[in-house]
């Protein structure tokens, strides 16, 4: 069983420390949490790593014992062989098989066009999360697979898909969940959506404003008030965005877009670029950048709109002395101590919190029930949404179009 470099690194780390949680691993390896999670999931599926839920708040990972390893591998092998034998599907036409293996939705008009070139397989199950065995079942006879949700594509998986020649990702980022080295070895081409014409940037930048206003204006609470015949306009506590000091962490993609839009609201803008503090932002009309620590002390509202190549551990920045009262976590890779957040929300030091991203999306239900998330999500000044920032009719249309263009040109 061959491992990727990052998986080897992970195992090496676990060998040293034996038991670590996701945050600790992410911090030590300086790799974002979602990436670590996917690698751990792959290792767990291979039986190399075990997940231990010690208490509702503590989940650890450790290397499996030799005995556990052997049993697990035997069991998995049997499962896979059974599945492959049971699900052998014959090709109906001479066309290459194009399989949409997860919940990605392509519009009917594009599917119709693609059917001229491919034997297209879509699956009726409309589930956001699929199991690895279903994933293999859907992919194993295909010549081309389209992947949207980041299920780890390992060498073991690729070896089961004997016809597979091409993987097309309906995402821009794919390096953290596809074993590219294995793809190269096996002669499998990988295509992804272009980053220069980012399909979701408009959706995500506008979502920042819907999140901002959800915190500054008590729309949801007011809606509920009207429904129960409570009509007290004067008792509402709301704020204008104009004139507020807004901090933005990161200006590679969405951050830069948000800067220009915030000008329409006459907000004061402060930037931190943790991975490139010296970048010239004069084009954005920003003369100076700050550290995240400085932003905590300077701004009223702090927005984390972008994903990063390494995690930002904000635990140390939260304090009762900070000025910042509103936080918007709209991306992966931001590490926050949820218990500290909860305490500051209770004490009134944080007046509003918006989260659109759980780092551990595949286990979100477990996380929600196990952690302080469940507590804070019922606070009136906390809004948590299920990663919908990018999800608009228009962004999906752009995504479909870009994906179709790639599939159309494939030889």
């Amino acid at each position, binding site marked *: 069983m061959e491992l990727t470099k990052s998986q080897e690194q992970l195992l090496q780390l676990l060998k040293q420390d034996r038991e670590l949680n996701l945050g600790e691993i992410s911090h030590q390896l300086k790799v974002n949490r979602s990436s670590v999670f996917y690698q751990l999931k792959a290792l767990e599926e291979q039986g190399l790593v075990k997940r231990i839920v010690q208490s509702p708040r503590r989940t650890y990972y450790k290397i499996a014992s030799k005995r556990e390893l052997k049993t697990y591998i035997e069991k998995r092998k049997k499962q896979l062989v059974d599945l492959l034998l049971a699900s052998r599907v014959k090709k109906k036409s001479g066309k290459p098989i194009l399989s949409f293996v997860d919940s990605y939705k392509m519009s009917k008009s594009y599917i119709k066009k693609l059917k001229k070139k491919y034997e297209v397989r879509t699956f009726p199950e*409309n589930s956001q999360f699929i199991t690895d065995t279903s994933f293999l079942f859907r992919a194993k006879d295909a010549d081309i697979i389209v992947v949207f949700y980041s299920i780890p594509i390992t060498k073991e998986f690729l070896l089961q898909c004997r016809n597979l020649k091409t993987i097309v990702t309906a995402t821009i980022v794919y390096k953290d969940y596809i074993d590219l080295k294995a793809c190269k070895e096996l002669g499998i081409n990988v295509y992804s959506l272009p980053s220069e014409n980012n399909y979701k940037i408009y959706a995500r930048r506008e979502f920042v404003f819907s*999140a901002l206003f959800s915190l500054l204006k008590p729309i949801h609470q007011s809606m509920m008030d009207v429904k129960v015949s409570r009509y007290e306009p*004067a008792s509402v506590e709301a704020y204008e965005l104009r004139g507020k000091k807004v901090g933005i962490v990161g200006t590679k993609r969405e951050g830069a877009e948000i800067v220009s839009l915030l000008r329409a609201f006459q907000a004061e803008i402060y930037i931190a670029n943790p991975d490139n503090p010296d970048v010239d932002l004069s084009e954005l009309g920003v003369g100076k950048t700050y550290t995240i620590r400085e932003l905590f002390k300077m701004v009223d509202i702090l927005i984390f709109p972008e994903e990063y190549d390494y995690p930002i551990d904000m635990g140390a920045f939260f304090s009762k002395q900070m000025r910042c009262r509103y936080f918007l976590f709209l991306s992966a890779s931001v590490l926050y101590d949820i218990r500290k957040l909860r305490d500051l929300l209770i004490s009134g030091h944080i007046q509003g919190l918006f989260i659109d991203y759980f780092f551990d999306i595949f286990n979100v239900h477990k996380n929600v029930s196990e952690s302080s998330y469940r507590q804070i999500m019922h606070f009136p000044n906390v809004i948590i949404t*299920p990663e919908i920032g990018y999800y608009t009719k228009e962004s999906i249309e752009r995504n479909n179009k870009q994906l179709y263009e790639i599939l159309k040109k494939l030889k």
Partner: protein
Amino acid sequence: MKKKIIFTDKPVVLEKYVSRIKQMRNADITVYQDYAKDSVELIERGKGAQIVITDAILPYSKEVLSSWPTLEIIITTSVGTDHIDLVYCKKMGIKVINFPGFNARSVAEMAFANLITLLRRIPLAQQHVKSGGWKYEPFEGEELAGKNFGIIGAGNIGQELIKIGQGMGMDIFCNTNHPSPSRAKKLKIGKFYSFDEVLQKADFIALAVPATAETENLIDAKALKKMKNSAYLINVSRYKVVDALALAKALYRKEIAGAALDVIGPEPYNLKDDNLLIQEMVNLPNVILTPHIAWNTKEASERLGERLVEKMIEVIKDSRG
């Protein structure tokens, strides 16, 4: 001689401004801390006043005003004056003071906030997560960039909406009663459009007009039919501008895509007393109704408080404040 000044309703300005007014020399101040239930109670509260300070809740009709023979000035802590019988005031020499523009930015931001909240389905998504769900699929949103933003009215609020819409990359289609090429140029909108053009072209229509005889039921069944099926209506002006029943019917017939309303009926409003169809409309997932809160931000309250104190100093002509 001291002027008798009465806040006939619970003041909407912050307590610190009420205190400053109370400290003014030559002023005998009475402050009520709730809203009068009806005109009978309102008449009782205002007896003997030379100056009354009110919010736009109960109507200051001829019946009410004629019961206060000593009244010289009405100060309304609102932009609109549609709750006051201005004809009677003019006839009787009663001065009416209002505060145009103090809340324009807050109202414009609220119009935009309501729109974007509606488009991105935030309350529904939040409810879904609270009940243990984590699916993005039911919450497909819509974007603003590149869409047509219709604005009816180019006053203080309309102008703020134009700035926000332009900043968000929307194409502006504005209608006003006072169009001119120079005004359009000043607002950087190219030109003004007729009311019907705005209805037909806009993806989102925001109403920012005062309540007058001319604007009553401006958005009626006929106007709603002219709108795109995919269009959204946002009302941050007065309730009389929209025929709520016609709107409810249009939403059920899917003649328009959704509505965000900050006002819906005469105040103090109680949804339970309204038409059943309107009560049902409020429960639709594509409708947002808030209790006339668009104006009410901390910043607007501060501006209103400052301006009220300044005005009081002016009318009393003596202050320690």
